């Protein structure tokens, strides 16, 4: 009888693992999820609330796909992993045996012990259930007079955009003195600050949450700001201060845990035949400057591709290539290739160009001594992944990259090009520097 591969979690990591195991073998595959019956794209949850899409559109595969590919789906909550007997225990006390187990259990929103963080109306935005909660808590601006979002990251700004689509007033508390400036250089972060305000979002920089105040029914009715003691009345509080691996159910399992599930480069845990992929996996050391835990869509997918090879008898190390990522801040798209840090590290310099309309800019990071190109952040201009990946591999100089920037342009046809302006700005800065 074929080996039974059980995958906990039907997000991108778990589903990619299953698909690639099916491509490579005839093993029996089961995917378990407590969240939804079918795989959907978590990144699209915001568009359901905004009315751009319906839930069914977020499913990358039609429902017949799973049966056709002999991937069994089980809707259940795993409460314990008994690795000695290779068995899972579900919340309803039933069990399931496995031969190999892949943990792809994702993340949960962070809570930092704020007073009132468990009140009604206080929520994160990660799961399908969170979306249902938001629809209940903030159906419209009559039911929700104001929402306060705590945490200036990617989910926070998405949540602000969602609420603004229903014209709900939003106050956005950001601990840093500028939006996401632990990651973005000042020029970019400042541009996004202004863009957020242009969308009529009450952005409060350098502001911490002290507490959330309850009404008589245990619902949030206001928040208090740490620095000033100001009380802001609100009906909904969005907690979006990052996510962390969703591993509480594994505490006593014997699987080695840190912040996430500890894995080696083969994505194996300390227990034989148990693997971890995606947001919940923690490398012992970050790979090529990456963080030990990468809660990014494509890394989940790549880990799934890799672990499927290993499980099917072609042992492979997880070996991500050059760093890249993307996001969208309201109307401004962002992409990054290679490494650009908020402050140039020792021996690095930044070149920054910004368009006068204040919605487009780029920052290029260069090794000062050699002129080697290290990375680029581009806002409001699309760039080709393939070209930058090649330039990084070829270790091109920033001079070369700037001169050939048009090759990497990925904007739609007839869009205005800015390469000339960028080149002349680059040259003038090189002269003055």
């Amino acid at each position, binding site marked *: 009888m074929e080996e039974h591969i059980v995958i906990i979690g039907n997000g991108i990591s778990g589903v990619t693992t299953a698909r690639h195991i099916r*491509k490579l073998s005839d093993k029996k595959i089961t995917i378990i999820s407590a969240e939804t019956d079918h795989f959907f*794209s978590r*990144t*699209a949850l915001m*568009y*359901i*609330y*905004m*009315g*751009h*899409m*319906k*839930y069914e*559109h*977020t*499913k*990358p595969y*039609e429902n017949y796909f799973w049966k056709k590919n002999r991937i069994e789906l089980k809707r259940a909550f795993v409460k314990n992993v008994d690795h000695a007997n290779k068995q899972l225990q579900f919340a309803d006390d039933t069990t399931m045996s496995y031969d190999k187990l892949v943990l792809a259990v994702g993340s949960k929103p962070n809570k930092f012990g704020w007073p009132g963080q468990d009140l009604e109306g206080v929520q994160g935005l990660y799961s399908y259930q969170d*979306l*249902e909660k938001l*629809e*209940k808590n903030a*159906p419209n*601006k009559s039911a929700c007079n104001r929402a306060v979002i705590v945490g200036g990251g990617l989910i926070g700004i998405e949540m602000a955009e969602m609420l603004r*689509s*229903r*014209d709900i007033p939003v106050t956005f508390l950001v601990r840093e003195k500028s939006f996401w400036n632990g990651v973005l250089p000042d020029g970019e972060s400042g541009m996004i600050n202004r863009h957020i305000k242009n*969308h009529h979002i009450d952005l409060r920089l350098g502001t911490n949450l002290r507490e959330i105040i309850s009404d008589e029914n245990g619902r949030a009715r206001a928040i208090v700001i740490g620095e000033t003691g100001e009380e802001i009345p609100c009906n909904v509080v969005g907690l979006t201060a990052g996510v962390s691996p969703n591993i509480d159910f594994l505490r006593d399992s014997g699987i080695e845990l840190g912040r996430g599930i500890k894995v080696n480069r083969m994505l194996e845990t300390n227990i034989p035949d148990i693997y971890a992929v995606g947001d919940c996996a923690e490398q012992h050391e970050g790979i090529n400057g990456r963080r030990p835990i990468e809660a990014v*869509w*494509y890394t989940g*997918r*790549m880990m799934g*591709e*890799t672990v499927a*090879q290993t499980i099917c008898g*072609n042992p*492979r*190390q997880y*070996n*991500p*290539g*050059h760093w*890249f990522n*993307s996001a969208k801040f*309201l*109307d401004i*798209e962002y992409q990054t290739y290679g490494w650009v840090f908020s402050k140039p590290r020792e021996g690095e310099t930044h070149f920054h160009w910004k368009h006068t309309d204040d*919605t487009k800019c780029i920052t290029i990071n260069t090794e000062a001594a050699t002129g080697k190109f290290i990375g680029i952040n581009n806002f409001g201009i*699309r*760039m*080709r*992944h*393939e070209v930058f*990946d090649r330039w990084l591999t070829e270790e091109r100089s920033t001079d070369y990259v700037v001169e050939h920037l048009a090759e990497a342009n*990925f904007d*739609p*046809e*007839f*869009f*205005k090009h800015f390469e000339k302006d960028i080149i002349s700005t680059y040259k003038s800065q090189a002269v003055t520097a």
Partner: protein
Amino acid sequence: MAIERNMSLTGQPPVSINTTQKIGVLIGMAGLFILLLAALGVDLGSAALWLTISLTAITAGVIIFAKGAYAHKLPGIKNDGVWFKSMSSRGVLGWIAGIVLTGFYIILYFYAGVLGLGQGVDGANTGLIGLFDPLSYLLKGSAASEWFVYGTLYTIAILAFGVKFMWKYKHNRYEQLRTISVMFFQTAFAFVIPELMARLNSDTFSLPYNDIKLMWPLNYYAFDQWRVDQFINAQNIGLFFLILGIVTIFVISPFLTYKYGKRWYCSWVCGCGGLAETAGDPYRHLSSKKMSAWKLERWMINAVLVFSVVMTTAVISTYLGYDSTKYWFTKNTFLISAGAFLVIMFAIVAYFKRDQLKNDAFKGAVIALVITLASFVAMSYLRFHEIQINAAYFSFGLNTNTYGLDGAMRTFYGFGIGSIFSGVIGTGFYPILGNRVWCRMGCPMAGILGIQQRLFSKFRITTNGGQCISCGNCSTHCEMGIDVRSYAQKGENIVRSSCVGCGVCSAVCPRGVLKLENDSLEGRINPTEVLLGNDVDLMDYVNNKNAS
């Protein structure tokens, strides 16, 4: 499901409309109300005055509505609430709009008398059509017909909703230029120039109504005898248009499709496409993305194409038989050369593109060719116009006339494809089936261009390495029902015969993954198993493994 509530028109943002939009609706409705009064036979007095007021109000209403919707907003994607609004999510308003549009088409095609066509003294127009007489006299110097009324309203819809679409995509030059293009081609080539040219007609000189951009097989009547005769009789200028029409089909169109994909026609020039992209834009997300819909589409559109080729050949062959002095070809040489042309085309494709033709596509093509050739043989032995068909068998006894088989076929095609499919279903059902159901399922022109685009074109939609997050905006808002995401998440270029190149998938993508491009044929279709970003050796390993 709790998260998919359907709010009503009077609901909350993003469903509710603001004061400017309400004023726009009011003005536009007033304009339509004047048309309704005229249609109901109310004597309004000066037709010129009321027609001017009505058309101005309709145009202004749409533009004011668009201003209210987009002017105060920052440039960006404006899809908030499209799945909540009753009008754009198959709600009550959507169904009402669908029924009203469908009703309008049925009256227009089959009961033009109701609209006042020739109902007055000495066959003068009354009612709605009478209202359009002043404009018709101004342009072409004769009374209006139902088609003039339709053409005017159609052009106004493309212009007014075109302005709305451009406002919606104020940040996107591709969308703006494309919209200016369809607005121009509709107004000039489909409306003003043909109507002005009608002025040239006299007792001794007559050109058929000729929308220059409309080519066979979209205008299935292009080679009907009356039309070809009229062209030939109009001597140099007529011959010019006849030859231009043929050159467009066999040379200009394939060349442009090779360079730019079928979008050069479908979303930059075509009138059907023009209406779909402007007035139909609010319904683009309603097209079905299911695999089953794609399968249906492939059978439907190619069946219509075969039918239209067979029918056109039949039509030409019947009149070629009558008069060998007037035409260069006799019936049999025409049939043999048409058949030979198709066989040679098929052989070339089957040989040079054999690696790209999937089994089912090849099978479908063989079936289509066999049916077509068998029909040609039948035409050569049978005299279609002498085969009599009693329509009673097909109309439950409603119509007891008998027709020649050729006439019956043409009537069926004109009625079934030309009227019911392209008009009643194609446009009337915008709010139910999406704005491109005709283009996707029924247009023979799209069928031909699609085959060219799939096999011989530099056009593709490129995906950007590993950036796709499978969110599904691209698929949801694809009016042709292409599951764009299924390609993007594999890092695979989108090379689909149905793609009209509207560019909306690229516009709505939040991660900058999609780009419409014309590039070399090499590597245009690039199936990949592992996306860019992962270990290069692993990519080679998996891709080679699958290639071998």
